[in-house]
């Protein structure tokens, strides 16, 4: 419906007339200014850790979207200036895409020991109410990592080998890390600063059931260099163990460039009740519930995962907005010289 039609309709019925008046008020550029002030205040007051205050952003953005939509509908300026109209339309698309993104996004964390496959389980998850998870189809295996440290134990490059089966069942390999995520089923997996040592155990239950191999993930290294211990429970039992990794080597020398690596020699201290045991690779601990075999020391890597299907569309909408605004300014500036 054009403005002239709206005016004709407005003249026809009192309801249409009132609606046209409201639309005009809603399209007011002064309301745009109010919305911008409210959004600016909301941006500065918003605390991402206190999710309840998200309305500080949502309310002015919603008002802004209404104001902009109404302005594009009634304002003759937009009809005269295609580039300006395109800019505001693209801006509206950005707001809508961000809103859609927040409804369907997923953000989370996971940890995988070397050789372990991702099964879709996350240690932390945050997602929009409309997110339909396909994480179980985004499988990959952590093939181990290398991390270089500069002097002063400053982390440099992280290189993490990963492999997965593609849709045709062929094995694919990649090296991810730093600025390179693994993208599977739209989910983007990133290595993180969170990584450490992972003792590998085999638990042989006394009831004769099948042995179970698994790892425990000791606290992140080197951040928790002096706290390499963990409380955990044997699978299928109530048996609580305290385990600590012990070694004397300096793995990451602050005086020189170094690399994350396993200690050449180490022992694993396992405390069960009042008893303390020291295990080396291959050693076992016999309990009433079964035998705990310490196989070897390995590593684990922490990943963050992010999903937002709107990302490419957001990029397109942003670039369209910027290009059309540049086009608008170009036309405006070309009409009169810079140095009049």
């Amino acid at each position, binding site marked *: 419906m054009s403005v002239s039609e709206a005016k004709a309709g407005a003249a026809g019925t009192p309801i249409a007339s009132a609606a046209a008046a409201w639309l005009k008020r809603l399209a007011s*550029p*002064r309301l*745009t*200014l109010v919305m*911008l*002030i409210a*959004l*600016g205040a909301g*941006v*500065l007051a*918003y605390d*991402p850790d206190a999710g309840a205050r998200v309305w500080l952003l949502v309310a002015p953005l919603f008002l802004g979207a209404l104001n902009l939509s109404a302005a594009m509908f009634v304002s003759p300026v937009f009809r005269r200036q295609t580039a300006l109209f395109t800019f505001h339309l693209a801006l509206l698309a950005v707001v809508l895409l961000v809103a859609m993104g927040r409804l369907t996004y997923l*953000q989370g964390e996971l940890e995988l020991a070397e050789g372990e496959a991702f099964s879709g389980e996350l240690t932390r998850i945050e997602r929009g109410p409309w997110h339909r998870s396909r994480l179980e189809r985004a499988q990959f295996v952590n093939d181990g990592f290398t991390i270089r440290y*500069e002097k*002063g134990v*400053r*982390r*440099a*490059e*992280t290189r993490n080998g990963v492999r997965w089966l593609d849709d045709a069942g062929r094995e694919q390999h990649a090296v991810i*890390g*730093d*600025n*390179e*995520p693994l993208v599977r089923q739209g989910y*983007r997996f*990133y290595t993180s*600063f969170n990584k450490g040592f992972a003792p590998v155990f085999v638990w042989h239950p006394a009831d004769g059931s099948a042995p179970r191999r698994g790892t425990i993930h000791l606290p992140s290294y080197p951040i928790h260099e002096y706290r390499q211990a963990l409380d955990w429970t044997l699978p299928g039992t109530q048996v609580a163990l305290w385990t600590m990794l012990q070694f004397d080597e300096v793995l990451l020398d602050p005086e020189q460039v170094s690399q994350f690596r396993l200690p050449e020699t180490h022992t694993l201290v396992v405390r069960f009740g009042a008893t303390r045991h020291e295990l080396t690779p291959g050693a076992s601990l016999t309990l009433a519930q079964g035998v705990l075999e310490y196989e070897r020391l390995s590593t684990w890597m922490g990943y*963050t*995962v*992010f999903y*937002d299907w709107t*990302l490419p569309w*957001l*990029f397109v909408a*942003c*670039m369209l*907005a*910027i290009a059309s*605004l*540049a086009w608008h*300014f170009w036309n405006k*500036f070309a009409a009169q010289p*810079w*140095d*009049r």
Partner: protein
Amino acid sequence: MTSELQLLWLALMLYTLAGSTAIGSMVLAKRPEQLILALIMVGLAVHAASIGLRWERIGHGPFITMFEILSSNVWSLLVIYALAYWRVPAVRPAAVVVMPILLIMMAWLLLTSPATGHFPPTYRTVWLYVHMLFGKIFLGTVLVAVGVSGLILLRHAGLGAASLTRLPDDVRLEDLAFRFIMVGFIFESLMLVAGAIWAQDAWGRYWAWDPLETWAFATWLTLVFGIHLRVTVKLRPRQSAVLIMAMFVLAFLTFFGVPFVSTAPHKGAV
């Protein structure tokens, strides 16, 4: 390192000479415009050599420490200003406003340590350069707008009247200043998009409301507000000039304040 610093000192002296000449010429109502541009250009060449030597020595660009960021920004701001100075004659008297701002940054630069910092692995991406380039163009164009706005305010304060009478009237100066703001707005928008792409790859999220992102967005909103206000309410040139100054202050604090008072990841700590 000695030759780097010697070249830097030489460049700063040339810039100071250019700034002093600009101020002196306004007081004396002279027009040594070519001399000022020549001093700036020679200073830029010497400064570029200093930055280049340091880049070669430490293996990365001037992106980490306050010393590097101030040095590279003094250089880039002067490149943008020199371009505007060359192409738009009405901008030339603005040296009397622009150069003192840069001299303050130079004094700050001399007070910072030239020691090197840690170059995080997430900085090894082309998006760092794209993001920085757009950011520098944004701040440079806003600085030129501030210079022109300063001329409006100087004229109203009755300072340098003899030199400022030959300039276009306030309405035209205000229009010129806002043109630079509009160009700056385009580049600030590009800077935010490039930064979001980099953040997505580096930290696994394109936006997380960290302090620098928050203040960069607040600066963007301030420019949007300023541009809308100018269209909606017919501002007087003096009001526009004050508005542009406020935009620059916010942008300046975002660039040079927030990254160094916040411990959030954007500082490059990860």
